[in-house]
């Protein structure tokens, strides 16, 4: 009898565990994945398509300069990544990933700061500062047109689940999850805007609303503030995990950084 109870309990447990996916937590259909570019007005699309009209290239230019120049005390990025070194084309499409030295999840901005402290004897740059935006815009622009392709492994899986959980968790006074707008209602109107699927392939992005270039984490903070939730800090573990979830969710989309968005 006792054994029978245990068997029933185990059955119940496995049923909750994985067998039946929660219909309220269904991922975006991979066949329906479409870049935020598709939801732009023709005028904004034209602004992104022309590398001169795209104001994001102000940061790309500046980033390219910083990349080559280095600082008084340290070597430049180009001295490692230049001719004959480790080229950075396509690298941004594979972030976020695990930093081998610390075993922690890191994104492109984090990796740039790791390079600075570990290899260049330089101080890490402030998040959302002009220099880090410029360098990340430049490095991300080297992967333009390449498909986002983050491969999940055992070390990334827990972060992925954490990010996925963030995406599906209701928060804020409006009690909305990312999922409610970006999975269930994309393509529909939210005040003056068309709701996109919320992909990360265009970041760092020049937002017309910001009148400047900004990182994905700044965008997350905007969304969290929009549903009147307490935003997380830039480069927090929650946002890094969310970034990872979005990279997997938007796999195959072409990198558009620096994109132009309303």
């Amino acid at each position, binding site marked *: 009898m006792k054994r029978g109870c245990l068997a029933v309990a185990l059955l119940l447990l496995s049923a909750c565990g994985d067998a039946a996916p929660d219909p309220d937590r269904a991922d975006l259909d991979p066949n329906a994945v479409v870049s935020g570019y598709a939801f732009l007005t023709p005028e904004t699309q034209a602004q992104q398509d022309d590398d*001169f009209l795209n104001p994001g290239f*102000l940061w790309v230019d*500046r980033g390219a300069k910083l990349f080559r120049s280095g600082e008084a005390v340290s070597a430049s990025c180009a001295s490692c990544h230049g001719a004959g070194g480790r080229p950075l084309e396509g690298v941004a499409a594979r972030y976020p990933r695990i930093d081998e030295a610390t075993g922690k999840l890191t994104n492109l901005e984090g990796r740039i700061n790791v390079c600075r402290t570990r290899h260049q004897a330089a101080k890490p740059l402030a998040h959302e500062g002009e220099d880090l935006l410029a360098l990340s815009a430049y490095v991300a622009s080297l992967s333009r047109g390449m498909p986002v392709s983050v491969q999940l492994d055992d070390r990334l899986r827990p972060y992925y689940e954490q990010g996925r959980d963030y995406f599906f968790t209701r928060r804020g006074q409006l009690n909305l999850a990312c999922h409610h707008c970006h999975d269930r209602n994309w393509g529909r109107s939210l005040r003056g805007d068309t709701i996109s699927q919320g992909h990360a392939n265009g970041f760092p992005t020049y937002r017309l609303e910001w*009148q*400047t270039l900004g990182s994905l984490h700044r965008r997350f903070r905007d969304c969290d503030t929009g549903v009147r939730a307490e935003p997380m800090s830039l480069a927090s573990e929650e946002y890094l995990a969310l970034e990872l979830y979005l990279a997997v969710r938007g796999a195959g989309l072409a990198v558009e950084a620096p994109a132009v968005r309303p």
Partner: protein
Amino acid sequence: MNTIRIAAPRTAKRGEIIELRALIRHPMESGFRRGASGEVIARDIIVAFECLYDGEPVFRAKFFPAVAANPFLTFHTVATESGRLEFRWTDQHGAVFSDAADLTVET
């Protein structure tokens, strides 16, 4: 560090109408916005732009607080002689940001 981007043809035929484009990184802070703690953010704008073709002005513009950040201009001029095109922005404090491009005119 004010990043400037300029698009100008390197060569043109004499008498040809050429398109010039100029973009500058600038916040164009209007002076009407308030910060997180309610304080007024001071106005900080570019007030004037001019393009000099061999020292002679061929295009001038005045900017006001309603102009967006990172102002972008497109304008045209007629290629007359080989020479230097200088693009100059002046902010409200009198600071000048400039860049130049050389144009070769073929007959």
